[in-house]
């Protein structure tokens, strides 16, 4: 079955510095979509980024990620972290029919002033 690995449970970064959240995956499907969802405290997860194109950079709200099928990765990056970025971030992949998302274990991002 599909699996998504997020190696960091907690990432702490100082405001204004760059941040990178790691995501790797395993899947048997060739055509699927990848997502980053963000969940703020006591709120619903919301989509941050989506990609299904190899080696294409996707950007939204200052965050960016590039799908690299050669390394099975979809890392999330931001050049300058903001206090408001503190949240729980999930990497996920969608099966070929789009009928379910497989989530990683989530990475909590804490941005310090």
């Amino acid at each position: 079955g599909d699996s998504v690995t997020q190696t960091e449970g907690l990432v702490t970064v100082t405001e204004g510095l760059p941040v990178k959240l790691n995501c790797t995956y395993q899947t048997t499907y060739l055509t699927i979509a990848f997502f980053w969802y963000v969940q703020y405290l006591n709120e619903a997860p919301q989509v941050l980024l989506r990609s299904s194109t190899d080696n294409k950079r996707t950007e939204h709200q200052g965050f960016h990620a590039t799908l690299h099928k050669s390394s099975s990765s979809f890392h999330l990056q931001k050049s300058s972290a903001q206090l408001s970025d503190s949240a729980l971030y999930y990497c996920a992949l969608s099966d070929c029919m789009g009928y379910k998302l497989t989530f990683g274990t989530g990475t909590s991002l804490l941005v310090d002033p």
Partner: protein
Amino acid sequence: ETAVFQTPNYHVTQVGNEVSFNCKQTLGHDTMYWYKQDSKKLLKIMFSYNNKQLIVNETVPRRFSPQSSDKAHLNLRIKSVEPEDSAVYLCASSQTGGEGQDTQYFGPGTRLLVL
């Protein structure tokens, strides 16, 4: 702006009781989902429905049963709750088919506490 609505927000019950959660989406999507988010924030699919048809049924205890009356509604019933059912249950919807149309939109969740 919320487009996936869930009720109740929070529910406390005793072991062995039956509970029901409701979900409604106003996005016009054809597929709806139930996910469970446990105390460690692990998020796992339970069920997905496409046009009122059950499509995905992960390894979920039989006491859980989804119910769909139309494309916009998907409810979840739990017969005889157990302590391990304490979690946040998240409903989501999406429009399947077509590039970029597989993004799922989540409701605010129903937090269940089983005493």
